[in-house]
């Protein structure tokens, strides 16, 4: 037995974990008959990768099986990390077509959550670049599901609840350098931030850090960061000989759990003010290395420990285009007034996406962390309600506490998902603490 939780370290449980090294290992684990769930690198914040039965640690299946430099298609086992894919293929001129805000996620986890990146508004989610997945179903049979097939569409965004993803083929993106041309725009408030996003629908990447602490006229002031992969011609002459080389960064690690009071209203407020001023002082274009652009948090190992022993929870919803402006105002108002605003709040424009069960849809997504305590859990219930009032839905990869009724009210796809689980025999076999809590 091991103590296991998600990245938020919220409500850990004693769990049975078995490491999978091959397809045969997964078959043996399934043959035992009890409930299982696949776990990638445990970067989902809540309980989606913890099973009440046996949690299958997929990191032992981390082999890259083939790469075709003509098409950019990589075939790999599900436990390989995006960080390993980048380390291996960026020097050859390839980068993941979609990447979340940390590179320490597995291929399987990226598919199961259909993760989104800063390019969702133009490219869609991770699933849009997957050619096929091989899934071991409840009976131990392995199916190669091609993009567009039923099993494929349920598995992308299916949170491990259709079966165990063993292997997948993904299409990478060609890049000329390891650098990003970034342009930062400081906005005085939320409306202006939304206007910037709407005016930048053709920017390859866009994301905003949003201040959820400041109230009044500057409510929701943001730093909107637009980006595109730099070409060789964008680099200063001295860098052109080694266009994929970027300065090495020292990786810091949080060595122990910080006491709960390290992050309080005052430190977070001061951080937000300072961060905003820093960004506002030097807006405009800049050339930044791929790792600082996509993964600023990866520079700090185990940063989830800064929230102390009780852990933290994340709230992430998406609001549809027509109600996003109103809904975001309400959400940010309530968060700022509560005095619990976090220092990592992210606002992002989604483009159209129509999927069986995946999270993204056209509109705006807001994500932020809270240290876990009664006050923040109460606040999140209010945020749930506002999201529902504006027709929004919630990201399961971030959820650790949502009540079943909220999910059902938010997402009319739940009934079909349950019916699929019952019909395929996946229900009762692929079970996470989250799927139990939400009755999936």
């Amino acid at each position, binding site marked *: 037995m091991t103590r296991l939780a998600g990245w938020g370290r919220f409500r850990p449980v004693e769990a049975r974990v*078995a*490491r999978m*090294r*091959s397809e045969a290992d997964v078959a043996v684990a399934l043959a035992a008959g009890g409930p299982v769930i696949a776990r990638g690198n445990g970067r989902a914040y809540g309980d989606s990768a913890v099973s009440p039965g046996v949690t299958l640690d997929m990191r*032992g299946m981390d*082999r*890259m*099986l*083939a*790469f075709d430099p003509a098409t950019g298609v*990589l075939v790999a*086992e599900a436990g390989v990390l995006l960080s*390993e894919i980048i380390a*291996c293929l960026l020097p050859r001129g390839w980068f993941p077509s979609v990447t979340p805000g940390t590179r320490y996620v597995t291929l399987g986890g990226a598919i199961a959550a259909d993760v989104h990146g800063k390019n969702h508004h133009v490219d869609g989610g991770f699933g849009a670049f997957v050619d096929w997945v091989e899934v071991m179903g409840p009976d131990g049979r392995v199916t190669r599901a091609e993009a567009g097939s039923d099993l494929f569409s349920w598995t992308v965004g299916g949170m491990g609840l259709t079966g165990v993803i063993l292997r997948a083929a993904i299409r990478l993106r060609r890049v000329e350098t390891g650098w990003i041309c970034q342009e930062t725009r400081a906005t005085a408030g939320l409306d202006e931030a939304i206007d910037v996003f709407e005016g930048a629908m053709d920017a390859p990447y866009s994301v905003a850090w949003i201040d959820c602490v400041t109230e009044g006229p500057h409510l929701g002031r943001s730093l909107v960061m637009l980006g595109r992969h730099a070409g060789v011609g964008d680099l200063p002459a001295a860098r052109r000989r080694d266009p994929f080389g970027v300065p090495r960064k020292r990786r810091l690690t949080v060595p122990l759990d910080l006491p709960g009071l390290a992050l309080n209203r005052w430190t977070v407020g001061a951080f937000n003010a300072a961060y905003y001023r820093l960004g506002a002082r030097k807006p405009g274009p800049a050339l930044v290395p791929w790792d600082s652009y996509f993964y600023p948090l990866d520079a700090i190992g185990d940063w989830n420990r800064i929230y102390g022993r009780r852990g933290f929870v994340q709230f992430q919803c998406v609001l549809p285009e027509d109600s996003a402006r109103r809904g975001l105002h309400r959400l940010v108002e309530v968060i700022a007034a509560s005095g619990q605003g976090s220092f990592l709040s992210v606002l992002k424009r989604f483009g159209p996406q129509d999927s069986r069960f995946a999270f993204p849809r056209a509109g705006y997504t807001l994500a932020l962390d809270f240290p876990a305590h009664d006050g923040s859990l109460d606040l999140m219930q209010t945020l749930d309600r506002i999201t529902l009032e504006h027709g929004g839905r919630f990201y399961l990869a971030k959820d650790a506490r949502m009540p079943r009724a909220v999910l059902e009210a938010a997402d009319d796809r739940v009934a079909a998902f349950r019916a699929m689980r019952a019909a395929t025999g996946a229900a009762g076999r692929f079970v996470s603490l989250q799927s139990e809590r939400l009755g999936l």
Partner: protein
Amino acid sequence: MSGRVQGPVLILGATSDMARAIARDFAARGCDIQLAAREPERLEADRADLVTRYGVGVTLHAVDALDVDSHAGFVAGLPALPRVAVSAIGLMGEQAENAADMTRAATILRANFEGPASLMGVLANAMEARGSGTLVGISSVAGERGRASNYVYGSAKAGFTAYLSGLRNRLAKKGVHVVTVLPGFVATRMTEGMDLPARLVAQPEEVGAAVLAAVEKGRDVIYVRPVWRLIMAIIRALPERVFKKTSI
């Protein structure tokens, strides 16, 4: 040997977690890799992985550690005599079974001592004749002192450690270097489910990095996590009168 390592690198017992990590580290240096195990067909995905990640040449070979008579033929049949040969062969079994059943115990002794020693011996002779090479034996801290909890496995590893030490001594002036690796606890299939203090448990990737560094720097005996040198010094120093009453 010191400086940049050259291939090919032979990995014996290539299906183990440590072996996989070691193979990756050498392949990352550009070395061609020879993977050997009892069922080489199980290594197909690992071969593909090393080729895809590092663009090196990888060959697969069948070897049975317990079939000592086949070892000379196995080494002669390799596409090239390796520059570096690593033995990651090992079998722990259940101590209770090993203590009760002597057939079982004999298998543990042979798989951890006789088999690896025979393979290293054949390779040593060939490397001596060539006048160069590095042999790496993954032995165990369990071989440093026999303990009730795993003395069958431990005694076989003790034999292997002594064998490696003798080979090193014999070959020191012949251009062949021998590295003994005493990994301590490593998070592998062997230790899965054991309740071990996290600070003492190395990840297989640490073993890979430590082995590569030892080969490049020409180290003789390495512990992967340095605390183990201290722990084993204490365990070895305990008087037998005291030691026999402990349960560690």
